């Protein structure tokens, strides 16, 4: 127990230390200010983090926003309305979907989603924050659904029966007993899904467009954009090891790791408060 905790701590420390070490030349030069700079032109020495950071936030929030209602609806449907004999099937299907490699989702996005967006929204290119958000929504949907279902399943039968005995109808029971009581579990599912979406690289890289530009205006999701992961994935091969460009990419990685860590500890903290 203690040994494993120590080991985890050590690994985490090494990881962050390694990223910090790699990012140091860049951090020393640009520092925090780069978070708010919007221009990323590696060959001119401009490394603004804002577009990719904003892009990352946009796509993960969009994905969660799209996936959560669907996941909840699916979970409630499966749990409350499906005959118990069939419940296993949807869950199995979701687990299979969760296991498909993300690059396959990326290819599907490339072949199906992008043309669809182009034709339906009359865009020059379907590559956009919206495309990435949609694809990520599809990717986190299975996990989100399975975990929400577990949370809903955990609501005690007596609680449901008390609500029935008070004459609450199905809808009222759903909104006033089931969802509120399953909320801690659903919330951790959301945080986990956010973490997964934040770290997703290949699929996003294929559909996001990889343009380091702030959306114009800021809520415009239909333009090509960039996320932290897609930028690292696309540029790390070109950046000379040890160059400032490379160091800036390391800083992007550090930023990602810290965001993921933040989400994880948030989940941990909230989970603890439940008990």
């Amino acid at each position, binding site marked *: 127990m203690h040994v494993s905790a120590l080991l985890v701590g050590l690994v985490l420390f090494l990881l962050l230390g390694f990223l910090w070490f790699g990012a140091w030349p860049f951090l020393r030069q640009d520092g925090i200010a780069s978070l708010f700079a919007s221009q990323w032109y590696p060959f001119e020495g401009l490394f603004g983090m804002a577009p990719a950071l904003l892009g990352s936030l946009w796509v993960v929030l969009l994905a969660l926003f799209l996936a959560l209602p669907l996941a909840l609806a699916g979970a409630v449907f499966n749990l409350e309305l499906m005959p118990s004999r069939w419940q296993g099937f949807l869950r199995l299907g979701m687990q299979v979907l969760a296991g498909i490699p993300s690059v396959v989702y990326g290819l599907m996005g490339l072949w199906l989603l992008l043309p669809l967006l182009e034709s339906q929204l009359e865009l020059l290119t379907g590559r956009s924050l919206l495309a990435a958000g949609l694809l990520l929504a599809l990717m986190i949907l299975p996990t989100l659904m399975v975990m929400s279902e577990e949370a809903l399943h955990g609501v005690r039968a007596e609680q449901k029966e008390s609500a029935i005995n008070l*004459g*609450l109808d199905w809808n009222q029971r759903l909104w006033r007993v089931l969802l509120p009581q399953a909320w801690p579990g659903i919330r951790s599912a959301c945080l986990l899904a956010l973490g997964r979406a934040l770290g997703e690289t290949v699929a996003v890289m294929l559909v996001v467009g990889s343009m380091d530009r702030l959306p114009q205006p800021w809520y415009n999701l239909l333009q090509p954009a960039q996320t932290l992961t897609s930028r690292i994935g696309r540029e790390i091969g070109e950046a000379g090891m040890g160059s400032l460009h490379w160091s800036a990419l390391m800083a992007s990685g550090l930023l990602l790791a810290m965001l993921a860590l933040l989400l994880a500890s948030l989940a941990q903290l909230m989970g603890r408060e439940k008990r």
Partner: protein
Amino acid sequence: MNTQINIESRQRTQAASSSLQVRGLSLRLDGRVVLRDVTLQLPATGITTLIGPSGAGKTSLLRCLNGLLEHWQGEVRIAGKDTRQWPGGWDALRRHVGLLGQKPCVFPLSIRANVVFGIQGFWRRRRAAARVEHYLRQAALWDEVAERLQQPAQRLSIGQQQRLCLARALAVKPRMLLLDEPTASLDPTSKHLIERSIGRLANELPVLWVTHDLEQARRLGGQVVFMCEGRIIEQGASEAFFRRPQRLESREFINWQVCDCGGPS
């Protein structure tokens, strides 16, 4: 002919004034017969205690009456209306018929929120906050919680939680109460308080009270219904029943709390 009509009309007025009429109620669960041909009438007000050995089907009967179990045969009329054709369906029926279970089950909310939980509509719930005191008084809990209505209900003792559940059921304004061993796991004080407050409520409502506590059944007075193996064996006024039970099974049950009704048939 004339007497015939008289009897019929008297039966009809009886039926109209009786709050609950069960006719030929039978129930199977998992292929086992749990209730057979139960026929029962409750007066318009007053307590009727339902006693019988474990597994007799008392809980199942209550669950049939408020529609928690649905696949039964026979007829149940409440206030003269067939429960299967209740306007608004089973949920509306359950607002008409309050049910209090053996184990208290409060919602993980404040005491106040628990009391008004069953009231329909967000704004009506908000407005009902003023009547929280009334319901808590009816359930003999007010004095203990008046200072801490905002605290989580789970912090109350089990006995207090059960009284909170009673208050919560009363806030829906039921016209009839079904109680399934509401005091079985309670301390004597809570038991006494619940008996007293329900005794008071029974002046206006019909109450069907399942209990294993024969002393309590005797104390409560009113009517007694004795059930065994899914059948009603005997019913009558409490005093007469406990003084001189008519059937062998009832006599055995109240003397030794055992019942041999010939086994399942």
